[in-house]
């Protein structure tokens, strides 16, 4: 339990036929830390999240998440690791359109049973899902069985957050989850997300280009500064 959430060393990633996208000497995130990762599009942000999430494999270097070296895991094992230990929230369209709100929140369990094992054993998984929905501000019980397409974007992001938090994964990765929200909703959402992360002592890696949010976090990291392969500022990739 003492291993850091993320430990990244001398990591290089390049596409088989393309240029080097990432070249990061070092990035550490401690357990329970709330880190703001600042990165514009084209800064290698998606690639970095893909590597931390175990979808992509670094070309060189080491990426340890919760003490596990992902670079050494086989693809299937990385998928399982991601499902078991990491919750993702994306910018928008996070939900499966043909599932109800509740089923969307419960979806990760279909792929990685371990994720909800503690609750599932007690038969209390749907209760936990409902608790999370309420904790994230979706109080109306009727909402839970509604089609997700009827929800506002703000509501959809809360459902996505509840899903990422289900089963208390150790690491939450949020990729611009607030960019499609207005300012008030943004602060509100962030506050509830942080509350729940604290409650399950999850580590939060929050990626955004919106620097105004940076002050709410324990620490702020600029991807452009640590990524030696990033194009110089002002050049769109």
């Amino acid at each position, binding site marked *: 339990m003492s291993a850091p959430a993320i430990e990244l060393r001398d990591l290089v990633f390049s596409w088989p036929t393309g240029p080097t996208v990432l070249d990061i000497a070092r990035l550490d995130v401690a357990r329970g830390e709330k880190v703001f990762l600042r990165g514009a599009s084209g800064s290698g942000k998606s690639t970095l999240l893909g590597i931390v999430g175990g979808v992509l494999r670094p070309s060189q270097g080491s990426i340890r998440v919760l003490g596990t070296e992902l670079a050494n895991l086989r693809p299937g094992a990385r998928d399982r690791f991601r499902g078991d230990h990491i919750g*993702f929230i994306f910018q928008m369209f996070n939900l499966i359109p043909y599932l109800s709100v509740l*089923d969307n929140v419960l979806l990760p369990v279909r792929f990685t049973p371990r994720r909800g094992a503690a609750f599932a054993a007690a038969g209390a998984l749907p209760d936990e899902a409902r608790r999370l929905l309420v904790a994230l501000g979706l109080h109306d019980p009727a909402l839970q069985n509604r089609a997700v397409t009827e929800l506002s974007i703000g509501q959809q992001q809360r459902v996505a957050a509840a899903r990422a938090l289900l089963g208390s994964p150790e690491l939450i990765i949020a990729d611009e989850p607030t960019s499609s929200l207005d300012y008030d909703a943004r602060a509100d959402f962030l506050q509830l997300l942080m509350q729940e992360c604290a409650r399950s002592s999850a580590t939060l890696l929050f990626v955004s280009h919106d620097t105004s949010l940076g002050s709410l976090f324990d620490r702020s990291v600029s991807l452009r500064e640590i990524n030696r392969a990033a194009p110089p500022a002002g050049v769109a990739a």
Partner: protein
Amino acid sequence: MSVLPLAMRSLWNRRGTALLTIFSIAVSVSLLLGVQKMRVAARDSFANTVSGVHLIVGARSGPLNLLLYSIFRVGDATANVSWASYQKIARHPDVEWTIPISLGDSHRGFRVVGSNADYFAHYQYGGDRTLAFAQGKPFGDLFDVVLGAEVARQLGYQLGDEIIVAHGLGRVSFSQHKDKPFRVAGILAATGTPVDRSVHVSLEAISAIHLDWQNGAQPAPWARIGAAQARQANLTPDSITAFLVRMKEPALIFTMERSINQYRGEPLSAVIPGVALTQLWDLVGIADTALTIVAGFVVLAGLLGMLTAILTTLNERRREMAIMRSMGARPAHIFSLLMAEAGTLALLGVLAGVALTFALLAIAAPLIAQRYGIFIQPGGLSGMDLSLLAGIVVVALLLGAYPAWRGYRNTLSDGLSMRV
């Protein structure tokens, strides 16, 4: 964890397209099953055209020709069998019964069959069915006629109607036996055999209408013999076209067959109906094989429709796949999700097709039996049907593997990146 419920929900979300896909598979499956059912029924009906007969005897010719003109009433005999030879064989102690058949005339395109009371007493088809009268009775008077079901239906004849028999077999004949009209005495129930398309008269009537004919030509007006005079004449026929034989013991069939084929009195041929029927089916069976192949291609077209329906959703679902990947779904999950969709569509299509087939058969079978005399066994699915259906699902899964593989490739290249 099973992705099957997910596949179901996904299909339900696209239920409009999914239902159409299922329906198109169902229609093609029921076509295939229908063809199978009809094929079996037609084959049975064909093999059951005549039963209980051990030998068909006619003037020397090939077995197919003999079978065709004596049973199916197609084509012509090359020569006749003399009445004396017929009598000799008919009275043989090993022979149980015979049915004489005299052909050569027609009525508005339907063959006229001359025979006697034994025809109605002994003619069997469909295993052990004997001829039944829908109306009336066998011929009592010289100029009585008994119509097959199809003849009466097509020409709209009732009991008591008068009909004129034409000489020769053309639908439009210029030489008609106008001087000797017949009266409809009976109408047979449908049998699904060529009997339905036959006009039956007595052997004596055949003699009577040809009494004044010379060498197959219409008599000159002064040489004509009227109907009343004909009744007085000796009407024992000189010859018949063919006859059907039943032996007292099946073991005697081959001895009789051999002795008829070697008969010294005149050149005769005897064939065993089953043997000749098999030969004939080998010939016409090609048509129903072709029909089955066509039905098979229709099923393939239905499945290709399914393939298209799944493929068109792939791009708009890349995002959904990426979301699932972020939750730990392996590419294998995505693959099996898409396979489950193909499998579900095919399975539902097949089940609906089976239901559709039985529903249609329940409606159509009585009509077909009544109209064509072909009896379709309602029954369940034969082993052949079941293996065809299983084959359809397997082919559907093989086809479904293509979009599944495409989806798999997409998720590998997309990763978590969200394409909208």
